[in-house]
């Protein structure tokens, strides 16, 4: 039996859902499969929580060989990994982590673009992770329609701040997840966009007791990658096992995220929160008011000679085949 050392890195702490499941699911699963033939055995060194890299540094850490396997939080890297924004630019389709994770992962494997982006960062793509079910709007005041968002300050982060463009006078205020409670409490913002699990972790019900179930959509944010030089030296048997288990990890984590989401919504209501289903017409109005981020995204890729438009169409089709019809057909507005 040959022993292979693997340094796993993430900047998030060991208690984060996807990190914990890497320890409790990914690693034992790989060990189990390798034990079946007995040719190889892994010697894992798990370095999480900033001991080698910060959350934003995983991509570079894997690139530079400070870790062998890493969980890259892709939303930090709009510039180096533009295609990873695929689900963020297509809101109002699927509030289901499993469907989004599978669709993005298939896009990554059917089109070379995503893998090429990682390859130019000297790493090999294994699988996509989705750790939240869907963004919702949490509010201090009762809320049911987009007119309730007009002229209000809404906390958000990254791409979702752009969902507010098109709503009259709505101003996006950037904030870290840990700040949302205070921002709402002091009235610095009137609303916040986050997912139910985060809302229950940070006791948002105390300060924003109304949740508008807008189902903005699940977003892919994690990718498991392997340093390219390390990968090239791995025996094929180990490569195969890593690839197989990565896909199972993808579904495992997405499934857990969905279970947690349900529990979190229940907890939110128990804690005194009210969930208001957003009217279909209102959702359509919001989607219609937004700029078509997906077309912007596709055009950007097309201009670089990548199949942006094709990826967008294929992604929409995959979700439709999985039973989710888009509130607004983003790809219908493509010019090519």
């Amino acid at each position: 039996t040959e022993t292979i050392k693997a340094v796993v890195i993430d900047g998030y702490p060991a208690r984060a859902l996807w990190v914990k499941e890497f320890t409790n699911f990914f690693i034992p699963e790989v060990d189990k499969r390798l034990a079946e033939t007995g040719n190889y055995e892994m010697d894992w060194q798990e370095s999480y929580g900033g001991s080698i890299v910060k959350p934003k540094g995983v991509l570079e850490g894997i690139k530079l060989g400070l870790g062998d396997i890493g969980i890259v939080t892709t939303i930090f890297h709009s510039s180096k990994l533009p295609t990873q924004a695929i689900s963020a630019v297509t809101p109002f389709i699927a509030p289901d982590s499993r469907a989004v994770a599978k669709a993005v992962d298939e896009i990554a494997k059917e089109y070379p673009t995503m893998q090429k982006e990682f390859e130019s960062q000297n790493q090999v793509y294994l699988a996509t992770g989705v750790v939240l079910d869907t963004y919702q709007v949490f509010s201090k005041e009762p809320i049911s329609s987009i007119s309730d968002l007009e002229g209000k300050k809404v906390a958000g982060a990254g791409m979702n701040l752009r969902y507010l463009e098109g709503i009259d006078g709505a101003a996006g205020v950037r904030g870290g997840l840990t700040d949302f409670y205070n921002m709402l409490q002091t009235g610095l913002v009137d609303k916040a966009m986050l997912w139910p699990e985060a809302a229950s972790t940070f006791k948002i019900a105390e300060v924003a007791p109304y949740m508008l179930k807008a189902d903005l959509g699940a977003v892919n944010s994690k990718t498991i990658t392997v340093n390219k030089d390390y990968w090239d030296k791995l025996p094929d048997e180990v490569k195969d096992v890593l690839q197989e288990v990565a896909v199972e990890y993808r579904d495992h984590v997405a499934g857990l995220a969905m279970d947690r989401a349900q529990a979190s919504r229940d907890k939110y209501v128990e804690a005194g929160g009210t969930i208001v289903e957003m009217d279909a017409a209102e959702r359509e109005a919001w989607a219609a008011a937004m700029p078509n981020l997906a077309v912007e995204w596709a055009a950007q890729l097309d201009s670089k000679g990548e199949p942006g438009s094709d990826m967008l169409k294929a992604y929409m089709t995959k979700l439709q085949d999985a039973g989710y019809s888009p509130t607004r057909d983003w790809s219908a507005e493509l010019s090519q």
Partner: protein
Amino acid sequence: MTPFEIGILSVVAIVVLVYLGVYIPIALGLVSFVSILLMRDNFDLAVNLLKIAIGDSVMEYTFATVPLFTFMGLIVSKAGLGSDIYTVMNSGFRKVKGGIGMATVGANAVFAAVTGSSIASASVFSKVSVPQMLAFDYNPRFAVGVVAGSSVLGMIIPPSAMLIIYSFVAEQSVGDMFLAGVIPGILLAIAYVVAIFLMGRLTPSYVGGRSADEMEWMSPMEIADKTLPTLVLIVAVLGGIYTGWLTPVEAGATGSLLGLIIAVFRKKLTLKTLWHALLETGHITASILFLITAASIYSRMLGLAGLPNELGDLLTDTRLTFFWIMFIYVLLMIFLGTILDTASIILIVVPLFLPLVEPMGLSLVWFGIVTVVGAEIGLLTPPLGISCFVIKATLNDPRISLKDVFIGAFPFALVMLVVLIALIRWPSLSLAILN
């Protein structure tokens, strides 16, 4: 070499180099670089470690608190807020034996809430309170000791550069760390006042001094004029953070702007003072953040070596108890406090102990307060005691030697140790305000 051996050897190497006089960030960076070379025999990997740590570490949004609070502290010192508070406190304590000493402690505690560094406190108060104590025949050693001891409050009571540094290493919220520092800071101030009272009773000749009968009470108008600007700043900065209206970065910027406005109103702001304050801020920021960057190279090297994992295993194997971990921790900090500055101590010991403390389920906010208070004891101990150096240099009085300052500060270092033990024993002292 095992990770554990690398950890021990690197600490020893750093201590030796620093003792020889090598710049602390250079010592940290170089030892880390060489450790990777020895460990992995891979030059590129060692270079890559530098690459990622240097790019990554400074790009932290919350680090803007360092220049902002430094600038605010400098500007309000120039506006004379420190000496104002002192004058007011002094008129209250004038009848008591050691009263000017107590007034110095009280004024330091208030001034600490508007400055982020002990150096600012030490230099302001050696100018305003030492001469006055000498004029009233206080023992010079007692006089400088009080100033040195109470200058430490500047970095425990928020805002504080050291709490910011800890929150970076331990990934805690700066706002939480600030709030947790309030009660321990006040507790330390009270402990100092009690100690001065006891010294006045038990060793009156060591304290010296005579009471001032000729002083007049201040009018309420005068008191208001001298305290309101500081109160406004405290409410805006700490209030802003406490309520969540402002992030610590924004509170620092608001405080800086308010400080500027106050200085303009008091006609204490010339273009030259503004430029000097900005220049000084830049220098302090660059040296602190470069130090942090180097320390981050070091802690990542330890991570790469697998030391945190090893320490975690060690803990489960040896079943070190809470008592022994904290005992070793405090001892190590006091030892390092003899030759390192506070920031370096925090940056070196925290990565070593976090993997021991975190699995025990202890609060990392509490651990940060313990760390900062423990590391600050070093400000008062020879041979390197920054507060004492600053006081000696600011006074520039041949009658008072550096040795006098250190001897005078010693009782206050002991009081700090007692308070530190209390903070370790009762974590709620640090955490109550957060819940």
